[in-house]
């Protein structure tokens, strides 16, 4: 969020509260910035520029959506979870099992079902888990995910066990556009569309009073209790919404790849999405985008050729971020730009 430049009189003397810079910042912060269409233009440009890398692009878009869902819980509400892949996996398995057993396979309603199942799991687990904090919360989220993973591993009859469910029959989108696993053009545009809709929803949510109260809970729980905010319900609601969006991301993943396996549920995915979000910067709308692009591009080119060096570098990067750059790439960018602004303001001298 960039603060708009001071306008008018910074005091309360002339026009009362509505002219105060803080009030102006609050009123104006949800407005669309001039650069905000840029990610979407780039995403469309990618479609035309790299028709041979659309599989990678689809994976990237799904990851962005998943990271956005985590951002809602972790970045905005401050729920430190190690088990967010539980909801991704729940969504993926919902789509996968319904399609595999021939119950339901239409893509868009499938996503709704995935969101519903994930939201239900988020609601039930959230009602129980979110009363705890710290290490207990960390452990409980981790254990919940491990529980689901173990269940998916064991229920071989329904989930395919360790091998997962391959070759899911996904019918054409709107009955017209066929999903082709080799040339995932339709998948790319479909995922992009879903991501856009979900992003608009999240953007609206975090700028709403509800989103503002989440930030308040993250910053100071005691004070939010004191001002009478229903803290626990806000957290549970946020967790449920976040779970639903993670479920949509999982469902998209299953539809785009036409298979589902245990990799959707593990600590691997949960840790990766956490790293991505932190890399980009959490608690800000575009952190997920930046983090996913940087991480996926690096891992795409490095992980396959030098897997060990990639892990070494990733470890070092994580330690450096935790020690020095707690707000990720976008946080660094903010620091640089504010410093620049201060300098240019100093040159102009006092008004």
């Amino acid at each position, binding site marked *: 969020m960039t603060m708009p430049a001071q306008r008018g009189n910074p005091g309360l003397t002339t026009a009362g509260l509505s002219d105060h810079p803080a009030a102006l910042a609050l009123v104006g912060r949800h407005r669309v910035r001039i650069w905000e269409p840029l990610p979407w233009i780039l995403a469309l440009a990618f479609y035309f520029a790299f028709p041979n890398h659309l599989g990678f692009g689809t994976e990237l878009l799904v990851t962005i959506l998943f990271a956005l869902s985590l951002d809602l819980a972790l970045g905005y509400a401050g729920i430190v979870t190690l088990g967010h892949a539980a909801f991704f996996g729940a969504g993926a398995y919902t789509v996968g099992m319904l399609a595999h057993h021939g119950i339901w396979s239409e893509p868009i309603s499938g996503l709704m079902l995935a969101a519903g199942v994930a939201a239900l799991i988020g609601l039930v687990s959230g009602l129980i888990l979110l009363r*705890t904090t710290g290490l207990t919360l960390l452990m409980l989220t981790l254990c919940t995910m491990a529980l689901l*993973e173990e*269940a998916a*591993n064991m229920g071989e009859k329904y989930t395919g066990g360790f091998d997962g469910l391959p070759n899911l029959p996904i019918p054409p989108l709107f009955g017209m556009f066929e999903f082709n696993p080799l040339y995932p053009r339709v998948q790319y545009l479909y995922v992009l569309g879903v991501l856009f809709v979900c992003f608009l929803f999240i953007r609206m949510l975090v700028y709403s009073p509800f989103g503002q109260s989440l930030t308040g809970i993250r910053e100071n729980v005691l004070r939010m209790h004191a001002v009478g905010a229903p803290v626990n319900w806000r957290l549970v609601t946020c967790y449920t919404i976040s779970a639903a969006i993670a479920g949509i991301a999982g469902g998209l993943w299953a539809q785009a790849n036409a298979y589902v396996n245990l990799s959707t549920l*593990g600590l691997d995915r949960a840790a990766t999405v956490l790293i991505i979000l932190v890399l980009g910067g*959490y608690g800000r709308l575009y952190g997920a985008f930046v983090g996913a692009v940087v991480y996926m591009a690096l891992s795409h080119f490095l992980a396959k050729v030098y897997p060990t060096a990639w892990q070494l570098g990733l470890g070092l990067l*994580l330690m450096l971020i935790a*020690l020095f750059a707690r707000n990720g790439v976008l946080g660094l960018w903010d620091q640089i730009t504010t410093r620049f602004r201060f300098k240019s303001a100093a040159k102009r001298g006092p008004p």
Partner: protein
Amino acid sequence: MLPLTLGERGPTVSAAPSHVTLNGPTDWGPLVNFGIDLVSMLLGGLAAGMVLFIVSVGLSVTMGLMGFVNLAHGGFAMLGGYVIVLLMRNWGIGFIPALALGFVIIAAVSIVFERLLYSRLYRAAELDQVLFTIGLVFFMIASVTLVIGPENQQLMLPSWLQGQLDLGILHYRTYSIFLIAVGTLIVLGLWLGFERTRMGAQIRAAVDNRRMAESLGINIDRLFMLTFAFGSGMAAIGGGLGAEFLGLNPQYPLIYLVYFLIVVSVGGLGRVTGVFFASLIIGVLDFALKKYLPQGGTLFIFALTILLLLWRPQGLFGGKTS
């Protein structure tokens, strides 16, 4: 990248083979056989639990002292295991001296890590601690893979620890009995140190109320450094002791991370005896479940942990701390 191996997709705590043979005639009826089964299960579970305790006790105390979420603790156990195995293989050092050397080396290494890196994050948010220690785990895994290789390392037990030991009514693996004996000695020593020494009293005070302890003049930073080094050294010993049946490869810290965390959160933060009992419970439970409920044993442990933590968020043996 992160194969958290659970269930039948990899080795778990109960991978220890329990070789049991009876003295005299073997056909004593089902009741006696069941009793023998029970005893062997108990012994195997206790041996695994002891290793779990030796590795996790340091984690519990450091977490209790500083509230630092150290997910890299298993990394020190892995490094210790490698040091011990390589010392024995390349320099022909005996098992016991190698364990002692492993303790000293890893304790020294961990002091460097603590002073240079960990100490910067004591007052940081939990998330930063989680990220930092995950990064450290990756770093350790990749370094070990680069320097030594990704394959499993075999620990050669000395001859006096191989084979079976006569326990009167049954023969049992000498090494398991050795583990139980060593674990008992260690827990007794730690308990005495905790309850009877000045430093133990300082640790207990700091776990219960850090601010109060600090204002009474206890140097928490120094205390933490020492316990951190000691805990990492213990983890190294645990890594060496457990290498024979837990396996030893670069993925070790991630494979067993959940077990260490479960033990610590069930036992309660900063509670030596709590972690001890929790380790034994998890060890025996894991053994029993693998035997009687091979499908879904792990599921049961996770479900149990969740229920327990909901009932008592401070752990089974943890006191009411803020």
